[in-house]
């Protein structure tokens, strides 16, 4: 079940479409070839509530990162709606956009690149306050910087305030980046592969930190390619394929009783820790097709092990499949 409490979701995304123009080249432009566009996100809907972590899972080219970028309005949506706390922000500009970027914070994949090497931890974490003209006087700002460091697990803060990024381990850097995103007291965190650049031994610490923040009431949208991580930490999982969500539901339901053949195949090839784990990998041939040429009908049908002729014609919608519990959706006419 969702951690729904009847209140409006923090973030609502409805039928979101984001497309990028395909360069036609000089010759193509002169000859007036038709303008082509790639739909990186092709009609995606989901919501994130307070105190909930939604994992958006998919392979490269699935559109998961573009979805995140569109929510943060780093990329302009083509159509659809994005609502934050019930307020439409799809086409927000100026003040609306500033407010969005104060309440929704992004955590990047690579803490080695997201921190300015010339800034001490103190300055890195204080920066967002200065940008948004918040935090009052210098003393108040320092108090908030310390508080953010403590929330990010960098204790005591005195130990870290005057350090430079190169003096920190990878895990500590990611904690500094998280502290910098917490200092504005955001309501939603968007974490794009937050641990994939880190060593295995420190990943759990960062993920546990995100889990604690979720428990304290933040909404978290985690973008990841790692199903094991999603299974462990997320409340809900949405599986993306070629710009669409093909399955969504409570994490446990999606992992233990997947309904979409793509989800089933993905899960079957995730290596497990126990060498005795009897896996029958269902290896799909080929790679995710080019989003310039999306197959008609169900976009997964050319690689689908259970496709029937109808799948070539019907573009399936997300619905509750037979035998699934409420809140578990799959876009497959055979599910």
């Amino acid at each position: 079940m969702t951690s729904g409490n009847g209140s409006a979701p923090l973030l609502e995304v409805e039928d979101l479409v984001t497309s990028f123009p395909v360069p036609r080249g000089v010759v193509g432009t002169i000859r007036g070839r038709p303008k082509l566009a790639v739909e990186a996100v092709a009609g995606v809907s989901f919501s994130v509530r307070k105190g909930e972590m939604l994992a958006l899972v998919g392979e490269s080219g699935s559109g998961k990162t573009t979805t995140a970028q569109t929510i943060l309005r780093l990329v302009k949506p083509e159509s659809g709606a994005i609502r934050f706390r019930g307020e439409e922000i799809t086409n927000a500009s100026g003040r609306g956009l500033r407010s969005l970027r104060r309440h929704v914070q992004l955590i990047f994949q690579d803490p080695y690149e997201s921190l300015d090497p010339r800034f001490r931890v103190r300055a890195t974490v204080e920066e967002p306050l200065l940008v948004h003209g918040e935090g009052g006087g210098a003393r108040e700002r320092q108090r908030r910087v310390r508080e953010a460091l403590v929330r990010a697990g960098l204790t005591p803060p005195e130990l870290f305030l005057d350090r430079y990024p190169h003096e920190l381990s990878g895990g500590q850097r990611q904690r500094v980046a998280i502290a910098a995103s917490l200092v504005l007291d955001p309501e939603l965190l968007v974490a794009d592969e937050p641990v994939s650049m880190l060593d295995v031994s420190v990943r759990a610490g960062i993920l546990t930190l995100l889990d604690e923040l979720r428990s304290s009431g933040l909404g978290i949208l985690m973008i990841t390619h790692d199903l094991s991580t999603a299974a462990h930490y997320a409340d809900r999982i949405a599986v993306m394929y070629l710009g669409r969500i093909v399955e969504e539901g409570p994490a446990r339901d999606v992992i233990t009783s997947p309904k979409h053949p793509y989800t089933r195949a993905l899960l079957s090839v995730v290596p497990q820790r126990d060498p005795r784990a009897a896996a029958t990998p269902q290896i799909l041939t080929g790679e995710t097709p080019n989003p310039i040429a999306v197959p008609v009908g169900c976009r997964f049908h050319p690689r689908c092990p259970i496709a029937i002729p109808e799948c070539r014609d019907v573009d399936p919608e997300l619905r509750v499949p037979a035998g699934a519990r409420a809140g578990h959706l799959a876009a497959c006419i055979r599910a």
Partner: protein
Amino acid sequence: MNEPVLTVEDLHVWFELERGGELHAVQGVSFELRPGERFGLVGESGCGKTTTILALMGLLPSSASVAGRVLLDGEDVLARGEQSVSPHRWTDIAMVFQGAMNAFNPVKRIGDQIAEPMKLHGLAEGRSTRQRVGELLERVGIPAARASSYPHEFSGGMRQRAALAMALACKPRVLLADEPTTALDVMVQAQILQLLAELADDFGLSLVLVTHDLPIVAQVCERAAVMYAGEIVETGSTDSLYHDPKHPYTRLLFSATPDLYGEEDVVSIPGTPPRLDRELVGCPFAPRCDRVFEPCASIAPPLRPTGAGHAAACHLNDPVMRVAS
């Protein structure tokens, strides 16, 4: 009977540092690879796993110095440096590099690059080269006609397939694969791992799989060694490493790895690995260990047998140490 194809004995690698001093990256690594075996070398960044296999290939930069023995069918290929390694490189022992993106020269056609090791060893000329390249590509699942493509025209998965074709060009017996699937999507990773296993069977290859990813080793390899701070701290069957680890680092590394169906909490390992540019005293894992006891701070535990085909470098397995403290 079942003599090892490859024996590594007390391998050490030092890198000279620009600011002076040395980094002792590999500190006495020994292992054996039996014919047809799939052996995993696992550890986190900086543990020395990649340096170890680069040393086996004789591909370390000039700032490195190497000691120890690497026996290929009983012959020491390190004995006379480049002179003794080069006849074996690609023909007996080949390597697939991490991130196939960088393994190919971007301005040369894939086919020409696959042919390079064959030409180097005079194994093919003219038309027969082209035919052999075509066969190799087909074998790894790429149409022969794509030999004239450039690396950027391939997807990551195809580049990794092409890298395998190149590694197999001179029919080696030992294949060293360094994080062969790290940058790939999970489905493409499964394709490459399946291909790797098939090729190992077909070509009678013995495989050393180097990775930070324990589940991959668990699913692909029969035996593995866990490295930490330049040393092998535990080695044995992958089954025993998971079900009956004898070194706290191995146990903690498994607990730090989330599993699809695992119910128990995933726990990180506090602290960081020691610096390797100064001498280590005692057990290198002691500062991060949850079972540390008296001798650990001062006495370095040797890798000692803890059962059939299993060894670990931990004082907990030594009754004398346990009684003494």
